[in-house]
């Protein structure tokens, strides 16, 4: 759910790994981010509408991943996938680290790119710079 940069890249990777992948976005234009060879289904619709989730077959999915720009939309859709459709693996991106912690404690599988990104930047900074690129 959410065919932004992350969603499109993830869908492509998962399909290359041999999974059957369906992509959902509120805007058809978002599917342009998918490569031409992507074979999975593309659906236009709102992922926090349970009728949309039912229509695209969330009930038969092994995993549901919400990566829209809205933390709250991701949280709501993921909980719907789990509670209403019994999806076993429901992953959710939450930018706000505090909300991420709250929902992790409630049992969602959550990722906060904010913390992950900050840590990566710090680690990169702490490493010695690559040879030949020091100074101007």
């Amino acid at each position: 759910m959410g065919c932004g940069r992350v969603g499109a890249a993830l869908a492509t990777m998962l399909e290359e790994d041999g999974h059957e992948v369906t992509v959902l976005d509120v805007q058809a234009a978002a599917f342009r981010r998918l490569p031409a060879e992507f074979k999975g289904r593309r659906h236009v619709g709102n992922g926090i509408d349970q009728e949309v989730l039912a229509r695209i077959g969330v009930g038969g999915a092994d995993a549901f991943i919400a990566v829209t720009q809205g933390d709250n939309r991701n949280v709501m859709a993921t909980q719907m996938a789990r509670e209403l459709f019994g999806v076993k693996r429901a992953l959710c991106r939450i930018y706000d680290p505090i909300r991420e912690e709250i929902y992790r404690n409630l049992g969602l599988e959550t990722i906060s790119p904010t913390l992950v990104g900050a840590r990566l930047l710090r680690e990169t900074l702490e490493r010695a710079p690559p040879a030949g690129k020091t100074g101007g």
Partner: protein
Amino acid sequence: MYIIVIGAGKVGYYLAKELLAEGENEVLVIEKDGAKCERIAEELGDIVLRGDGCEAATMSLAGFGRADMVIAVTGDDEDNLVSCQVAKVKFNVPRTVARINNPKNEEIFRRLGIDATISATAAILAHIEQELPTHPLIPLLTLRMGLEIVGLKIPPTAAVVGKRVGELMLPQQSLIALIIDSRGSPNAPTGQTVIQAEDEVVAVTRTENEGALRAALTAPSTSEPFGAAASGQ
């Protein structure tokens, strides 16, 4: 009571105003939009905090920890859900109420621990359904052996108005079990009970006889001077 209202749109504004008018409440409104905050501050006083009602920092500042009730009434169901869930889980707010815009969300909100939901859409739909001239028969409960309990309101134009229950020509295996009159009093009807306009009738019928029962109870009288028969019978 300390009541926190999230969202200062029309619902939030009038809600805060009413809660303040009760006199006993401490009310705080949280709103992202600066112009809406100003309107509240000018008209209702210094009871508004500008910020995101889903953001834990804003929630701490607003004193969610001592709130008796949180009411989330923004136009976005996902925001109302998260505000209420965080209020419950992180701040132990005893009662959370969420406005839902999509009436289908009622169940998921309840399952996720929100104490109460209010759906304007559902309320309006219920009123429209009651006011519709066709007076649909509403299935209430499915019983065994193809029987079901249905509800229906007697339109003022119906031919059965003024008739006794014993005189009615109902389909086979159909039975009027309860009549709620227009004042809201429930009565177990006898053969002598007279049907009145606007009575709510609860009946048992066979599923295949639903249409026939509806016709029997709602069809307009053919001698109706204004030709109420135009409603399709």
